[in-house]
């Protein structure tokens, strides 16, 4: 649905986006993460056709954003950063303007505007001019504008920025609901948001993709992610460690007090790792008596810090 092909952009000497490619299909909600200045907004601006890339392109629903921009944009809803809107217009007039410019008219226009108003809870402010709105309402107006033509692809640049926790929750729910029938990309700084709303996440750093996977897969890359194993007989611990050491799924085994922390190789889920471990132990001639076997999911913020901080050595 959304295909990003080798996008590249530099501003003067600074490389903002260095060769980014990925795809999002219908039913996926892709969280777009990265530190400030990593190139998130620049990438989104190129996908939506606002900014011309130095090289590469993007396709929306099969339409190339550079060669067929009008068709591609018709298939796309976009909430730009800070949700810009014509501040002198009333909310309803603004949404009607967007719908008309997108070619809607008559009953279908009214229906589109009404359902966007309902989805974004805008009824109380319809007659207000946009400059008088609070930040939360402004964002919701921007979101309403992005979804009113029911586009198959949706790109949202920090949709929950500046909202209070209740509003954030509502918007995440809305994104999750829409994710069933659309391809959605949204950028955020808030990592819980990724777990709450995304089926997949991409982390970019200095213009490059440094991680791409489901929130669970990403979390598995964190330092604390792993299987915690504790044996009844403590003196068997190192023997057990040697037994498991050679499993193809195992990346590293750490001894912590009386237990083992077994970390998976990248791309191995904790679930598969735990299966492999239990099987190996069951088939092993030495009978290990397990006191505890527990999956410890990692933490997204840990992964984020590890792979986006330049000086950290990856392990």
């Amino acid at each position, binding site marked *: 649905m959304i295909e990003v092909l080798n996008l590249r952009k530099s*501003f003067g000497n600074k490389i903002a986006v260095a060769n980014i490619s990925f795809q999002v299909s219908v039913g996926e909600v892709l969280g777009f993460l990265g530190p400030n200045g990593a190139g998130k907004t620049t990438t989104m*601006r190129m996908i*939506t*056709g*606002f*900014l*011309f890339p130095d090289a590469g392109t993007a396709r929306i629903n099969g339409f190339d954003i550079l060669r067929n*921009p*009008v*068709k591609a*944009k*018709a298939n*796309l809803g*976009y909430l*730009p*950063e*800070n949700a*810009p*809107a*014509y*501040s*002198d*217009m009333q909310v309803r007039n603004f949404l009607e*303007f*967007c719908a*008309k*410019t*997108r*070619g809607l*008219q008559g009953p279908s226009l009214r229906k589109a505007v009404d359902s966007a108003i309902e989805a974004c809870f805008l009824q109380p402010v319809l007659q207000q001019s946009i400059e008088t709105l609070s930040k939360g309402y402004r964002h919701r107006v921007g979101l309403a*504008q992005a979804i009113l033509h029911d586009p198959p692809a949706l790109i949202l640049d920090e949709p929950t920025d500046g909202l209070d926790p209740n509003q954030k929750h509502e918007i995440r729910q809305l994104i999750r609901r829409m994710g069933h029938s659309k391809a959605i990309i949204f950028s955020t700084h808030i990592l819980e948001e990724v777990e709450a709303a995304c089926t997949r996440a991409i982390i970019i750093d200095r213009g490059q993709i440094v991680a791409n996977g489901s929130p669970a897969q990403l979390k598995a890359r964190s330092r604390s992610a792993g299987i915690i194993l504790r044996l009844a007989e403590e003196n068997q611990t190192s023997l057990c460690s040697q037994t498991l050491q050679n499993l193809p799924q195992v990346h590293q085994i750490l001894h912590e007090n009386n237990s083992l922390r077994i970390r998976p190789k990248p791309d191995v889920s904790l679930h598969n790792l735990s299966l492999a471990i239990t099987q190996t132990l069951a088939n092993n001639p030495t009978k290990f008596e397990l006191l505890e076997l527990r999956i410890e999911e990692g933490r997204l913020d840990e992964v984020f810090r590890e792979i986006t901080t330049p000086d950290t050595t990856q392990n």
Partner: protein
Amino acid sequence: MKPLLSLYKRELISYFTSPIAYIFLIIFLTLAGFFPLLVSGYLQRGEADLLPFFSWMPWLFLILAPAIGMRLWSEERRQGTIELLLTLPILPWHAILAKFLAACSIAAIALLLTFPMPLTANYLGNPDNGAILTGYLGSFLLAASNLSIASFTSILTRNQVISFILSLTIGLFLVLAGWPPITDLLVNWASQQLVDLIASFSIMYHFDSLQRGILDLRDIAYFLSLIAFGLISTSVLLNSYRSNP
């Protein structure tokens, strides 16, 4: 065509939701009446034509056209709505044209509201109404040319004041290049042919025959090419802005 119409309407309405349109119309109409009647002594001349009225148009639009055109793109840049506008399923020239036409409409409304001037002339005598028509045509083309320049200067900056000063400066050059006090001065320094060549670039040179009732296609072509230059420059600058905002 439909997106063009929708963009045009929004742009036109936005002039009236802010005080810009009203202030512009009031000032324009006041000055358009004040200069010919009190400065040029329209009533004392005893001639039923509108020359004193039209001869002020280049000066009025020199200042007032940048005032209505300065916000066209700079305001979009300042508010960030340019990102919204250019990700709607429209072609860039839809937006460029819609904005330009909306600004031209304000100028057209202003000119139409000067209708008491020709009525007065017709009441007092028998003016050449053909000349009045070409005078109005010339005034509108003059305004449109200045607005097309304001369109491209406004895309250069997010600051409306800079946009205003730039388009005023370009407009001033186009007026002065053919203004007799300046051309008389230039004759001392350059050959007559060169002075004539420079003067032929001037708005004054081409407006002069229109306000006298001479409908020359070359003058019309001059204004139309000036407008085309302004709009194409807008498009080029818009593309460069989208490559490097």
